Structures are given as structure tokens and as C-alpha cells.
């Protein structure tokens, strides 16, 4: 009798387990279908997906910023440590570079003066001034096929969709999903990135188009354009959002139609980005730094120049 009772309970447990397994399988199926539906919806309504991602970024970015704080300090210490070891060599290199840069500065100042006088002769109206904002990268590129980073700056800081993001060296990409205090920057290497540019020397127009490789392609180049490795590529401003003349990259290789650009910015290691706002609302004389936005570090300005300014 007791045996029969136990058997009954065993059968009941077996049924419950079976039922639970079926329920789990069903929920897996439902969730998989939901995931597919989400992907299709994101494709059909890109604006909605963008808004959702921007809101999610607002929640995730502060968390990442908080967690990455110790990592970035550890990296800073490590860097300082390695710098200490290479101090002498680094010093010699910097002295040499400083000399070279002084020559450049001399010629830049000369050109600036010449430019100003020529402009006054022509009654030239300068390009609208730009405002830059600095944002810290808190989220690295994580998607397998997406080349983008998350930065800690959003509409609160005046960031808007389409704004150019730069490092000191060159263009990095543009802002896509802009939240209140976070934004996603689509790198110029991403498959969906197309940036109108010109070859600095020849003023030939083209598009820098990402293909997820480290070296984006230069497309829509005129048939008779003469493009050789080493030429500089800068933004043309033809999209109406980017300012004209932001440095993008250097022509790396030319194989028939396959022209590759090496970005000037080191995209593999992004820490701080400058976002460039060219909207009319920011056009006040106080907020008009010159482009490219390079501020000389204290101590690197030669005495001669200091005296002049």
C-alpha cells in the first residue's frame, strides 16, 4: 500500500517535471520569436529603435562610467609608470619635435597674418564659428559587426545627432543615438558610415565609406582624379552638418578602384572625444575657438610666440 502511495507521488512529480520542461521550452520559443520580432521592428522603424537605444544609453552610460573609473585610473598609473622609465629618450624626442613644431608655428603665424590681410582685402565672410565639447568614452566597441562607442554627453550638453566627433589627431565619427546625457558615436570604420570628403591637395570630392575594416574605402571618386598614397583627406562639409576641413585620414593604398584611407585618429584606443557643434544657436563670438581645436599644452609655447600674443 505504502509502495503504491510512493509510486503515485513519483508519477505526480514526473508529471510536474514534464510540465515544467514543456513550459520552459514554450517560453524559449516565445522569447526567440520576440527577439526576432524586435529585430524586424528595429529595422522597420529605425527612429523608434534609435530613441530606445538613446534612452537605454542614458541608463547604461552612468553605470559604465562608474565602473570604468578605477580601470581608467589604473591605466593612467600604468602609463605614468612606463613614461618614467622612458623619460630620457622621450625628452630628447620631444625636444627634437618641439624644434620642428616651432618652425611650423612660425610659418603658421606668418600664414595666419597673410590670410588675415588677404581676407580683409577680399571682404571675406568667414565660416560660422564652431563650439566643441569634450566627452569621455565609457562604452567600448562591443558588437561584433558594429563599430561604435558610448560617450558620456548628450542633449544636456548640446550634443545633437550628426555632430562630428574628433580626437586631437582627426575625425572619429559622428553622433547617432543621442540621449539626455549619453550618446553613441558611430565610428568612420563602421559599415553604415559614409562621410563626404575632399582630397586636400587636389580638392577632388569623394566619400569615405566604412566596411568594418581598420582602413575605410574612398568611393565615388571621379574617373580622372589622381589619387596617390600619402595625400590628406579632409571633410568637405557637403552634408551640411560637419564643418569643412576636419582632418580625416591619409590615403594608404590605391589598387584600381579600391582606395583605402588610414584614419588619423587612433580608433583602437579612444578615451576622450571632442564633439563639434556647428548649429547656429551656438554662434556667439565668445564661443569661437579656431579649427582645428588644438590647444598647446602649457610650457610648449615658445617664448617668442608668447611675447607676440
Amino acid at each position, binding site marked *: 500500500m505504502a509502495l503504491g502511495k510512493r509510486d503515485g507521488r513519483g508519477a505526480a512529480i514526473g508529471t510536474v517535471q514534464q510540465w515544467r520542461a514543456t513550459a520552459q521550452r514554450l517560453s524559449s520559443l516565445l522569447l526567440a520569436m520576440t527577439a526576432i520580432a524586435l529585430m524586424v521592428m528595429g529595422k522597420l522603424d529605425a527612429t523608434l529603435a534609435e530613441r530606445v*537605444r538613446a534612452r537605454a544609453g542614458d541608463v547604461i552610460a552612468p553605470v559604465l562610467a562608474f*565602473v570604468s573609473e578605477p580601470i*581608467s585610473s589604473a591605466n593612467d598609473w600604468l602609463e605614468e609608470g612606463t613614461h618614467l622609465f622612458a623619460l630620457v629618450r622621450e625628452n630628447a624626442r620631444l625636444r627634437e619635435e618641439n624644434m620642428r613644431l616651432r618652425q611650423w608655428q612660425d610659418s603658421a603665424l606668418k600664414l595666419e597674418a597673410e590670410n588675415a590681410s588677404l581676407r580683409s582685402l577680399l571682404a571675406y565672410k568667414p565660416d560660422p564659428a564652431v563650439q566643441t565639447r569634450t566627452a569621455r568614452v565609457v562604452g567600448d*566597441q*562591443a558588437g*561584433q*559587426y*558594429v563599430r561604435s562607442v558610448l560617450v558620456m554627453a548628450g542633449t544636456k550638453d548640446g550634443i545633437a545627432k550628426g555632430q562630428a566627433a574628433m580626437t586631437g589627431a582627426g575625425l572619429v565619427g559622428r553622433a547617432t*543615438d543621442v540621449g539626455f546625457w549619453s550618446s553613441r558615436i558611430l565610428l568612420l570604420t563602421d559599415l553604415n558610415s559614409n562621410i563626404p570628403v575632399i582630397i586636400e591637395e587636389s580638392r577632388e570630392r569623394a566619400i569615405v565609406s566604412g566596411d568594418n575594416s581598420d582602413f575605410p574605402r574612398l568611393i565615388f571618386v571621379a574617373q580622372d582624379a589622381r589619387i596617390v598614397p600619402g595625400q590628406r583627406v579632409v571633410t568637405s562639409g557637403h552634408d551640411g552638418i560637419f564643418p569643412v576641413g576636419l582632418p580625416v585620414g591619409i590615403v594608404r593604398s590605391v589598387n584600381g578602384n579600391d582606395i583605402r584611407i588610414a584614419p588619423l585618429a587612433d580608433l583602437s584606443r579612444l578615451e576622450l572625444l571632442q564633439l563639434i557643434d556647428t548649429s547656429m544657436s551656438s554662434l556667439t563670438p565668445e564661443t569661437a575657438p579656431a579649427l582645428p581645436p588644438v590647444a598647446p599644452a602649457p610650457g610648449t609655447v615658445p617664448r617668442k610666440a608668447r611675447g607676440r600674443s
Partner: protein
Amino acid sequence: MTPTSVWHRLDQTARALVPGLILILATLLSLLPLGIPGWGQVTPPFLLMAIFWWSIHRPQSIPPSVAFGIGLLQDLASGAPIGQSALLLVITQWIISGQRRFLAAQPFLLVWGSFALVTAVAAVLEWVCYALLTVRIPPIESGLIRAGLGVALFPIVVRLVLLPAQRFANDGVVS
């Protein structure tokens, strides 16, 4: 209620939360800018490792809804198409938890082999998803490098993180 039972309960809760915490840690690890040049492009699939491991050794801790949720979080944080990782993780959890009795009884080499298979399938599936959604053919190399790195690192991650975490979660013996 005696203090012991409160402690016991807290202890039990902490142990039950371990798999979830590991999943969140794996997500963060693949998102944080670690300052290693080029890391972002080849970040191994830590989340897939964790889901794979817990599906075999502690399936009750990660029901399909958790796999879905953490995948969605990963998609939102990484800028990938929303739903892509969620789909991959739900499918992985589904398949592996169906084979868990078999896999739990196998030597590690075979588990490792299964993980390699799952990773390869996931990489291809992710590639197909992306190609369908963007109507373009993305290069698959970076995906394969990522998968390869994940397979190579799997035994280390298991030895250093997943196995100790599993022991802690199951019986409190931390090795």
C-alpha cells in the same frame, strides 16, 4: 526566527545570485574600455561562455527569460541590432539545457569541443542576422577571430571564474 536562520537565508540568497552576477560581470567586461588597443574589435564572447556554463551546471538560475533579458541589455549597450544577442543567448540556453545531463557527465575536452561548436554556430548566426538586417555582406573575419579567442580562453575562464563560482553557488566550497 533565530539569527542562524537569517544568516542561513542570506547565505542561500547570495549563492543563488552568483550566476546572475557572473552574467552581469561578463556583460560589463565586454563593454568597458579597458585601454587595450584593438580590444573592442576582438572582445571574446564572455557572456556566451557564462550562459553555456550555467545552462549545464545551474539551469534553474538562468531561465530563458534571464538569457533573453541579459542579451537585450547587451544589444542596447553595444549598439547592435536590438534582439540579436537576445536571440542567440535564448537559443544557446535552449539547446544546451536540453543536453545538460549528457554534457555534465562528459570529460572537459568534450565540453570544450561543444563550446567551440556553439561559438562557431553563434558567430555564423550573428553574421547572418547582421547581413539580413543591413542587406550587406559584412566581413566575417573579425567574428571568427572573436570566436577563436573565445574558444581559446574558455578553459581559463572556466578554471578561474566559472568553476569556483559554481562550487560556491552549489555547496559553498570555494576552491
